[in-house]
C-alpha cells in the first residue's frame, strides 16, 4: 500500500474518532445530531477510500449505505421525533462534560495500549485502524452511560456501530455478508428504537430514561 493510501485512510479514521469526541461534549440535541451526521460522512469517506485502496468494490456499497442511512435517513428521522414529540432540546449529562472528556481520553489510551502489542504481525494500517475503531466503540459506550436522554442513548448506540464498521473496513477482504448485516441490523434497530420512542412517550410523557428506571416491578 502506497504512502498516500495509508495517510488518507489514517486521516479519515482519525476524523471518525474526532467526531466521537465531539458527540461527547454536545449539550443540545440538534448539535448532537449534527455531530453524528458528520461522523457518518467521515465513516462513509473512510469506507470509500478503503474500497479504492484495497480494490474491493463491495466497500463502495458499504460507503453508500452508510451515507444514506446514517448521514441522511437517521438524523432526519430522529430530528422529526424530537420535534414531533416536543422533547426537551437540551441534554442533561449524568457525568460532567469535563469528566467525560477525561474518561474518553483514557479510553483511547487504553485501546491503543491494548491493541498495539497484540497485533504486531498485522499491517500498520490494520493495527491503527483497529485501535481507532476500538476507541470509537468505547467512546460510544461511554456516551450511553453518561447520558440519560433516550435519544442520545440511541445516538451513542449508533456510534458504537460506526466503530464496528470502521473496524470491518480496515481488515482486508472481510466478506460482504458482515457489512450488509451491519447496515441491515442498524436499520432494523432503528425501527425498533423508533417504535420504542413512541411508546415510551405515550406512557411516560418524557424520554428521560432516569424516570423510567423508577418503574421497577419489584419495588411496588
Amino acid at each position, binding site marked *: 500500500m502506497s504512502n498516500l493510501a495509508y495517510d488518507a485512510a489514517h486521516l479519515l479514521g482519525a476524523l471518525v474518532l474526532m467526531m466521537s469526541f465531539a458527540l461527547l461534549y454536545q449539550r443540545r440535541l440538534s448539535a448532537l445530531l449534527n455531530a453524528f451526521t458528520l461522523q457518518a460522512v467521515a465513516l462513509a469517506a473512510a469506507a470509500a477510500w478503503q474500497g479504492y485502496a484495497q480494490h474491493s468494490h463491495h466497500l463502495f456499497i458499504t460507503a453508500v449505505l452508510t451515507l444514506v442511512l446514517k448521514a441522511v435517513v437517521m438524523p432526519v428521522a430522529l430530528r422529526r421525533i424530537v420535534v414531533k414529540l416536543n422533547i426537551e432540546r437540551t441534554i442533561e449529562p449524568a457525568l460532567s462534560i469535563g469528566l467525560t472528556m477525561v474518561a474518553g481520553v483514557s479510553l483511547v489510551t487504553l485501546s491503543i495500549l491494548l491493541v498495539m502489542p497484540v497485533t504486531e*504481525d498485522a499491517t500498520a494500517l490494520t493495527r491503527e485502524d483497529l485501535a481507532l475503531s476500538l476507541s470509537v466503540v468505547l467512546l460510544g459506550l461511554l456516551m450511553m452511560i453518561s447520558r440519560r436522554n433516550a435519544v442520545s442513548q440511541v445516538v451513542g448506540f449508533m456510534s458504537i456501530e460506526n466503530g464496528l464498521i470502521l473496524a470491518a473496513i480496515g481488515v482486508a477482504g472481510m*466478506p460482504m455478508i458482515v457489512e450488509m448485516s451491519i447496515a441491515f441490523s442498524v436499520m432494523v434497530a432503528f425501527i425498533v*428504537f423508533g417504535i420504542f420512542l413512541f411508546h*415510551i412517550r405515550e406512557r411516560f410523557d418524557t424520554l428521560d430514561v432516569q424516570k423510567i428506571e423508577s418503574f421497577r416491578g419489584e419495588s411496588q
Partner: protein
Amino acid sequence: MNLIAVIVALPALSAGFLALIPSWRMAAWANVAAAAVTFVVSLGLFADDTGAGWLFVVDAFNIYLVVLTCFVSLTTSLFSATYIRHEVETGRLKALNLRFYHAMYQAFVFTMLLALSANNLGVMWVAVEGATLTTVLMVSLYRTAPAIEAAWKYFILCGVGIALALFGTILMYMAAQPVMGPGLPAMTWTDLMGSVARVNPDILNLAFVFLLVGYGTKVGLAPLHAWLPDAHAEGPTPISAVLSGLLLNVAIYAVLRFKMLLAANGAAMAPGPLMALMGLASLLLAAFMLYRRRDIKRFFAYSSIEHMGLITFAFGMGGPLANFAGLLHMAMHSLTKSAIFYAVGHVAQAKGTQRIDKISGLTVSHPALGWGLVLGVVAIAGLPPFGVFMSEFLLVTSTFARYPWLALILAAGILLAVGALVMRVQRMAFGEPDGAPVPVHGSLIPLYVHLALVLVAGVWLPEPLVAWFRTVAALLG
C-alpha cells in the same frame, strides 16, 4: 446435509404465513402445526449424515441442540395456545397484537435454529442479533409501563453486548486472515478449526474476551445479567419459557464454539479461569437474590441465572467430565425450566397475580397444576431422581477431585439456591388456598411431558447422546 436447510427454512416460511392469518385462534393452532412439522423433520437429522457446507454445519455438538430447540418450541407453542386464549378472554391482549406475536414466535425459532446451525461466524452473529430483536418485540407485547421498560433495558444491554460480540468476530477474522487468506474460509467454523493452530494467539485472546463479554450478556452472566429478570417477568410467559429454555442455550453455544477454537490453537490463553469465575459469581449472586424475590416469574428468572452460572462454570473447569456435565445440564435445564414456566403461566392466571405472597395452597385448589410445579421445582433444585441431579452431581464431584475449595463454594451456592426454592414453593404449593378456586383451562401435557423426559434422563441416557457428549467434551478441551 440438505435437511438442515429445510429445518431452518420451515419456521421462516411459517412466520410469513402466520402474519397473514387474521384469526388468532387459527394462528395459535397453525403455530403449533408449524412447530410440529419442524420438529418431525428435525428428527430426520438423526438418520441424515452430519457434515458441513458453506452455510450450514451439523455435528455432534449442535445436532442435539437443534432437535431440543425444535422440541421445546413445539411444546411451548402448545402451552402458548392455551395461555393466549386465557389472556384474550380476560382482555389483557388484543387480537392485533396476537397476529404479530405468532409471526414473531416463528421468526424467533428461525433465528435460533440459524444461529445453532450456521457454519459462518457472521451468519451466526446476524442470527443472534435477530433473536434479540424478535424477543425484544415480544417482551413489550403487553404494552404496560413495566413491560416497555423491561424491553428497553433488554434492548440497550443486549444491543451493546451484541455490538461487542461483533467486534470480537471482526477480531477473529483479522486473526485468521493472514493465515487463511481473505474471504469466506476465514469466517467458516469448519475451515477455522483446521487452521486455527497457526493463528496469532494474542489476537485470538483479545477476540475471545470481547466474545465472552458480548455473548455472555445474552447468557445473563453475573455483572451483565440486569436485563434477564425484567425481560422474563414482564413478557408473556411462553416467551419467558423459550427465553430461559432456548435462547440462553444458544448464547452459551456461541461462546463454546469460540472456546473450541481457542482450545484447538494451543498457544492461546486458557479461557477456563475467566469462565469459571463468571459462572461462580453468577451462581452465588443469583442464589442470594432468590431469597428476596416477590414476583414468581422474576424468581425463576434468577434461578435461570443460577443455572447459566453452573453451566458456564462447568465449561470453565473443562476436562471430559465437567464438559459432559455442562452439556447434560444445558439440556436438562432447558427442559425443566420451560416446564416450570408452563406451570407458572397457568398459576399466575389461576390466581390472577404474579406475587408470591398472594399465592398459596396450589396443590389443594389446582392439584394437577400444583403438583406439576412442585415436581418441576424438585427437578430444578437438583434433587434425585431427576436429570438435573445427575449433571450437578457430576459437576460437583469432578470439581471436588481437582479443586476441593472451588467445589465447596460451588456446593454452597447450589444449597443456598435449593433453600430458597424449597422455602418459596412450600408457601405456594401447600397450606390453605385463599379465595375460591378459579378453574384454568390450560393444557398440562407439555408440562408433564417435559418432566417425564427429565425423569427418564435422570435414570437412563440414550447411548448416541452419551457418545455425542463425549466427542464434544473432548473438543471443548
